[in-house]
């Protein structure tokens, strides 16, 4: 379902507000600044157990990382600033693939590289130092701009992955490969659930992609992920499943295109971070979201990721204005994450139906404990 908190700010659509990070490996154009200042791309060799980065220092400016996945698990690569603020990331690098990350780092300082084989956990970390560059800007507006830019990157990465994974999922459905489609279902939705507050901005697209059967309005067609969920996990694939699948991909592509023109404010980030957790509290903890597949915990994790993504983008602002709130948030995010980690199974999670009432209660209580400080972020940001 949907988070509606962000939607209450007028939509400012900016033509050509481009995302910073170029994702596609074949995109060799780089950008206006050309190659990274450190003289060519920094090579990252990722495997299931290692994350070898060819250089651990670079001058401020545009840095280009070239990541090769030599392992057997799908991986991700991140460049973090202090406090795990994401400067740039590439998700969903399948074994054998090369991907490129171009990220603008304006400030000298300590950073960290990370590969995440299996796309879980904190990853294999390495120190990375950036030298030169502009001194840290204390100016609040610049900080806010930095925060939204950083979150734009997060959105861009996730929407790109969403489009890619949805295309695969849709192919499986259309090929009638129900078992493989079932296996792909939850991990495809992850990218949607992470950016739900943003998807919400586009009135009709969100319901078309993500409406739950229980929420259908009179005369509204049941389409999107949950319709295919029902086909795959309950009724078996239907005659019109391929059309539904095609429409889903069309809608997702449409959404991805639209997010590129979205201009978020720091307040949007704050509200989105809170809204995602409200979403967990009202729909995921109750098992209402994934009625047929019971993969609610995947969504739960993705909502938490999305919330954390927004908070890490806001981190410098929060750190300057209310460091105590930052440590509370860190603690409570870690607490929720710890509970989620306990329910991992294989590459994903246990089904919602395998949770005991006590475990559900424990989740609810941890989500409440995190949601309270999250609800204070907006005010701190607006000061």
């Amino acid at each position, binding site marked *: 379902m949907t*988070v509606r908190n962000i939607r*209450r700010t007028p939509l400012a659509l900016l033509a050509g507000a481009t995302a910073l990070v170029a994702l596609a490996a074949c995109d060799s154009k780089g950008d206006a600044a050309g190659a990274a200042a450190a003289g060519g791309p920094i090579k990252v060799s990722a495997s299931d157990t290692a994350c070898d980065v060819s250089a651990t220092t670079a001058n401020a400016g545009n840095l280009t990382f070239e990541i090769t996945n030599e392992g057997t698990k799908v991986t991700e690569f991140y460049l973090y600033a202090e406090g795990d603020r994401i400067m740039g990331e590439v998700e969903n690098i399948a074994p054998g693939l090369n991907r490129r990350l171009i990220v603008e780092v304006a400030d000298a300082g300590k950073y960290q590289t990370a590969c995440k084989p299996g796309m879980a956990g904190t990853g294999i970390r390495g120190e990375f130092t950036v030298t030169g560059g502009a001194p840290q800007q204390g100016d609040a507006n610049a900080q806010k701009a930095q925060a939204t830019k950083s979150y734009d990157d997060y959105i861009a990465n996730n929407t790109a992955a969403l489009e890619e994974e949805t295309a695969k999922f849709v192919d499986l459905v259309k090929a009638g490969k129900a078992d493989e489609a079932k296996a792909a279902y939850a991990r495809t939705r992850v990218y949607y659930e992470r950016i739900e507050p943003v998807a919400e901005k586009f009135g009709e697209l969100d319901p078309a992609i993500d409406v739950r059967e*229980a*929420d259908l*309005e009179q005369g509204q067609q049941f389409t999107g992920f949950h319709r295919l969920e029902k086909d795959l996990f309950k009724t078996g694939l239907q005659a019109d499943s391929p059309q539904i699948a095609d429409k889903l991909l069309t809608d997702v592509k449409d959404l991805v295109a639209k997010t590129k023109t979205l201009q978020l404010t720091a307040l949007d980030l704050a*509200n989105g971070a809170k809204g995602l957790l409200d979403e967990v509290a*009202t729909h995921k903890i109750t098992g209402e979201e994934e009625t047929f597949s019971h993969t609610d915990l995947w969504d739960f994790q993705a909502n938490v990721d999305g919330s954390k993504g927004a908070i890490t983008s806001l981190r410098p602002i929060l750190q300057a204005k209310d460091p105590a709130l930052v440590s509370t948030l860190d603690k409570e995010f870690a607490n929720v994450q710890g509970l989620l980690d306990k329910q991992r199974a294989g590459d994903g999670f246990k089904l919602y139906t395998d949770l005991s009432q006590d475990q559900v*209660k424990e989740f609810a209580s941890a989500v*409440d404990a995190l949601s309270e400080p999250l609800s204070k972020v907006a005010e701190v940001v607006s000061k």
Partner: protein
Amino acid sequence: MTSTEGTRVSRRKLFGLAGAGVALAGAGAAAGIGIDKAASSAEASVNTVGFHGEHQAGIVTPAQANLHFAALDVTTKDREKLRQLLKTWTDAARRMTAGQEVVANGAVGSGDYAPPGDTGEALDLPASNLTLTIGFGPSLFDGRFGLAGKRPPQLIDLPLFPKDKLDPARSGGDLCIQACADDPQVAVHAVRNLVRLGFGVTEVRWSQLGFGRSSSTSRAQQTPRNLFGFKDGTNNIKSEDTDILRDQVWAEAGDGPAWMTGGSYLVARRIRMHIETWDRETLDGQQKIIGRTKGTGAPLGQTAEFDELDLNVGGAGGEKVIPEDAHVRLASHQALNGVRILRRGYNFVDGSDGVGHLEAGLFFLAFNRDTRKQYVPMQQALSSKDAMMEYVQHTGSAHFAVPPGVSETGYWGEGLFA
């Protein structure tokens, strides 16, 4: 038992001393009629609501502070037993709304070796503006009692609305009793004793306690607040709006079967509120969801509570000051082709939900002339567009035909069983 037997009862003993909320003189209260001759004092008149009349009490009566609502199923197959029970209930209601025991001296005067005729918990309490209102659910017209042909077309099975999460154990019912009073104990006592009289004929299907009326139904009343902390009922139909009541609340001759003329249709919805997530919403966000300010209750873009909603006031960036998905916009008669309903909602907190939250919400009661044309389109709009739906969930639902009022010698539903 006739309606005139009985003597001055002990429930009057502390009259005026028990801390019942003082009703507003002249706000539609009337003296209890001809039951206890001794009880027609001025004191009694401010504390009782007349039982008899063209319409049942408890609809336009200035909303009392407390509610006990019960939905019952009929367990007998014997139509005559049901008819007799309605007569018995009517007599009991006459007495209890006048501040008397359910039978004269019932609590302690029934003899040592008989169970007391009145359960006794309201012995020392005044009438407390008790009203008792009865209604008939769609399932009563299923043919068990030969009533199939008498079902009003307005008494539909309510459709499932988007996002409904109805609990069958909190929905439906062959009959309903709405007891409203200034004192919760008086309301519970009334329902309890009617239920007791019904054993063998009816049984409770579900019931709901409510407190802190969340709607005002008279201009003499302050608008109360619901558990979201907002004034609720500012724009409600008031008992003084006789023209609107005629158009929107009372069934007229020709609307449906003759036995319903002067009656109304009651929609009951148990609405769970996610108060925990609501409380994390910013003030600005809360106000935009509702469409009113939290302090005064003024519509956004206006200054005072009772200022008329203006849905077209524009604000920053050309956005409407009252957002497109604001609750008051979608529920307003301006947005619903002039359709209105009379609300009589109550707050509830039914313990907790098992995962660390209060099981709180609003027990929504609405009276309208034709549910098909009034409540249903309104709720369709709200369920699908209302920003508030993020914070509420409808967990119970019922629909009843509320027959007209009774004469001093009549009984509830007389026209239906005639």
